[in-house]
Every structure is written in C-alpha cells, then in structure tokens.
C-alpha cells in the first residue's frame, strides 16, 4: 500500500530541512516524521521519505536499517524495550526479562497477536542508577521489580 505524507507534514519537514545547508542532513528527522505518521518504517514509507528528502530509496533503507529505533516491522501499541546492559544486569534485569516473557508470552522481537504489545531487548538506556529499566514507547520505567513489571503491563492493558 502506498503511503504519502499529509501536506502539513511536508510543510513541517520543509521547516526542519531549512535548518541544514544540505537537504540530505534532514534524513533522520524525515524518518522520525515517517515513524510518527505511519507507526513504523515500511519499505513504502522509505520510498516516501526518499522522495521527500530527494535521495534514493536505497540510501534511505541503509540509514533506516542502521539505526535500531526506526521500526522496520510494525510494533505493538505498547513497545516494551527492556535494557539488558551491565548495570541493569547487576540490578536484576534477567528477572524483568523473564517476567515480561512469562506474562506476555513473547520472545524478544515478537509482537502479540492482538497488536497490543511488542517486546525488544535494548542496550544501555542511561538509567544505571535506577536499574533495572525499560522504556515503553517514549517513557522510562525505572527501579523495576518483577511485581512492578507485572503491574505496569496490567496498567498498559487498560490503556
């Protein structure tokens, strides 16, 4: 399915592109706009971004694939990103992972059948003093315990 940017989004992009002397520099911001508008970065969205920025679809694809925060598959409504790096490991992130996997019956990289939850392991979220930590969409949830993780998921279900 072809996707297109709404005129007001194109206008927003032009405002951003004007901040750089080279239009290509606005490629990362354009991908952010695409993710905000379409929910994820499909190949159709990459073509759309390429047209907007004035680069080839392949150039968009190599950049989109390089950065882990651009979602190349459709994430769930609540995208759970559990930190697995050293400080969270020391603080018990293995238990948080197990809790998420048990409660949602998901493995890293999977999305629930109802599209409500997706689950991903990520690297250090700069929340080392409040570990273990997970990011749900843009929000940080810190000092997690298996109990608070279960409660968080239950609260998200109600949203």
């Amino acid at each position: 399915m072809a996707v297109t940017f709404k005129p007001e989004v194109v206008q927003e992009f032009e405002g951003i592109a004007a901040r750089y002397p080279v239009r290509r520099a606005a490629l990362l911001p354009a991908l952010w706009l695409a993710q905000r508008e379409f929910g994820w970065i499909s190949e159709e969205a990459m073509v759309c971004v390429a047209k907007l920025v004035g680069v080839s679809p392949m150039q968009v694809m190599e950049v989109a694939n390089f950065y882990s925060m651009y979602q190349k598959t459709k994430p769930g409504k609540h995208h759970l990103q559990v930190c697995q790096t050293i400080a969270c490991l020391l603080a018990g992130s293995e238990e948080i992972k197990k809790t998420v996997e048990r409660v949602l019956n998901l493995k890293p990289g999977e999305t629930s059948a109802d599209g409500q939850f997706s689950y991903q392991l990520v690297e250090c979220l700069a929340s080392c003093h409040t570990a273990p930590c997970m990011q749900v969409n843009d929000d940080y949830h810190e000092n997690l315990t298996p109990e608070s993780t279960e409660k968080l998921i239950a609260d998200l279900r109600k949203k």
Partner: protein
Amino acid sequence: MATELQLTKRYGLKDSHTLKVFLETGGYASLPKLFAMTPVQVAEEVKASGLKGRGGAGFPAGMKWSFVPRNSGKPVYLVVNADESEPGTFTDRFLLLNDPHLLIEGIICASYSIECHTCYIYCRGEFKQQFDRLNAAIDEAKKAGYLGKNIQGSGFDLEVYVHRGAGAYICGEETGLLESLEGKKGQPRMKPPFPAVQGLFACPTIINNVKTIASAPWIISNGAKSYAALGTPESQGTHIFGLSGHVNQTGYWELPFGMPMMDFINNYGKGVKGNLKAVIPGGSSCPVLTAKECEDLTLSYESMKAHGTMFGTGCAIIMNDTVDMAVVLKNLTHFYADESCGQCTPCREGTAWEDRLMKKILAGEATAKELDLMLEVADNMEGKTICVFSSALAMPVRSFIKKFRADFEKHLIKNMVSVPETVA
C-alpha cells in the same frame, strides 16, 4: 566548606527547566562578561581553566576551541554531543532535563569563542523528553533574545537546533556523530582531517560533550583561576560523578575532582552491598579495577591513568563478590558486538568473535586455549581500526581476564583438546 554547585544547582527546583527559573537563579549572567571579551580571549580563559572534555577522552576544551581556523571563509559549526550511551553513564540525561538553559548559555559561550553561528545538539534518540525540553528551551531563549539575531544587543547571531539520533552507540564517537548529522549511517571517519579543520558539511567543527559546554558559563563568570583552584592540579573543576551497581545508594553527585574513590563509595554511595570485588570506573570501555586497586584511587584523570585505566565519563559501576566476572564480560562482548558499526574488519569480526568465545566459555564448552584466544583476538582489535570502538572492547577483555582469571577458568573444561573456533 562545600564547593559551589555549577552544573546541578537548579536540580530539584520546581520548573528548573524554564527560562523564568533560570533567570531568577543567575542564568545567562555570564553573557555581558562574555561579549566584553574577544573570541580568542574566551578560548584562552577556558584553556587556562583546565576544563577537559567530559565525554570520555578528556581533551582540553579551550585547546580544542583554539584549533578552529579563523577566516577560513567557511562557516564554523558547534556540535554538542548529547548522545549519552556509554554503559554505566547517566548524568547528561538529567542535565538536559533539569537545566537545558544552562547548556544553551554554554553553547553561546563556546559559539562566540569559535565564531560560530549555527549549533546542533545531537540528542540521543531514546531521550524524547530531553529532546522536547531542549526544543522548548530554545524557543523560550529565542523569544527572549538569548538566541537568534544580535543576542542581547551584542551583535552576535546564533541559531541552535536539536538533531535527534535513532539508537546507535557509535554516534557518540564524534565523527560517527557528524556522519549521522549529515543523514548517513553513523560510521566514523578517518582522521585527519580532524573535525576542527574539516568536520560537519566539510566545515570547521567543534564537538563537545554536554557537561563540557555547560561548564563554560561558570568559568566565564568566575574566571579561569577560580575554576582551576577546584579539584586537583591536573583535574580542574567539578564534575557530576555517578554510582551504579552494588552500592547501597546509587545516584549522581556534583563534586570537585580528587575525592578518594572509596570515600565516594562509602560517603555518597552509603557503602558497598556486600564485599567489593571490582569497579569499572568510567563507563564500560574503561579497564576494570580490583578492590585492592581502588584503595588509593581518586576521582581524577591522573589517578585513573596511574592505575592503568581511564577517567572516562566519571560514572562508576560497582560490583560485589557475588558477581561472576565472566558473566559480566559476556554482557559487554554482546554489547560491543551488537553496536559495532561494521565498517572495519578487526572490529566487526573481532567483537562478534569475542562474543562467541564468551558464549562458548559460559556454556562450559571451552578450554584454556579459548581464553588465550580471547586475548589474542583483543590484541588484533586494538589500534587497527578507524575509531577507538574496537579498543573499547579489547581493553575490558584484557583487564577482566588478567585480573579475574579464576572466574573464567571455573567455566573451562579441564585437560581437553579444544575444538578450534571457526569463523561462522
């Protein structure tokens, strides 16, 4: 007497991120003094203060600023590295959130000194809240005449833009960051040319960490001598030090350099939970230290160097004696294998190889030969690539195995001929 807080004094104030609170608490007060100086004088002042880059490499900031060629005919750019993602490090995140105007004030100081009129703040992708706060602060500052044309009647123009990253550790490396800002994969560039001569859009560019830039206003207001009087003769000023891992109180505190590590752990971290085994002093790339080595360690660039490690970011990860260092190193090899940009063969293959070897060791399928192979691979990773990412894994591999070999040996199969590791 407690040292005056320079970077964190507004933390905890209600609406500390707003222009109103910033101005009520002495914000933008350095500007009249700044604009009375010449750009060269500003660089000299910062040089005299001893301020070093707080991002990890510790390069003297004023000296960096003085490398910018003046009258090159090209625009000059300032880029603030707010891509905080070194494992164990978490203090820029709060500076951006609590006091974005302090960063803007520092940006004005640095930009004026290097005669730059466009600054980009490269903000880590995960920091959406910080990204929004920075944009709001820039809007406020612009409306109040602290950014834009003719700042406070000085005749100096400056625009500041926030550029959001998208989840790639390597973009914290300054030339990887520049590539990313130009809309490309964040793969580091060969140096020379150095960014000060040919950086962003092939123009002279200075890249500094958040805390480096945020330290500038205090130096301008209070003078280089007052700044240099703080800390130690080789580590001047204050820094936001962090503690994570096995201490009773994790967190961050702004302190002058030079405090003994054990005092920091005991007085601020309220002591180690259990018995101290190891400390990674400044982010995961720094060689690990044993409890014994920490006895006479101080929070300073020179003491870290004397102990064979690095100051790094000043955020220490504390580990007690329940920790299996082999498990921790596996965590790090996974991180580096995952985050290698893939550009240089020794790094792309080396980080993944180290990770496979650690997997094999933890699975109980390796012999002493594999452990030695890890060291050999580390030797082949260091100093053979475009950037220091590869060394940033080689150093922990070597220090972990050298200092905590018993933790690795207990996973090994004894007296067995090993199957050679093949490159999958």
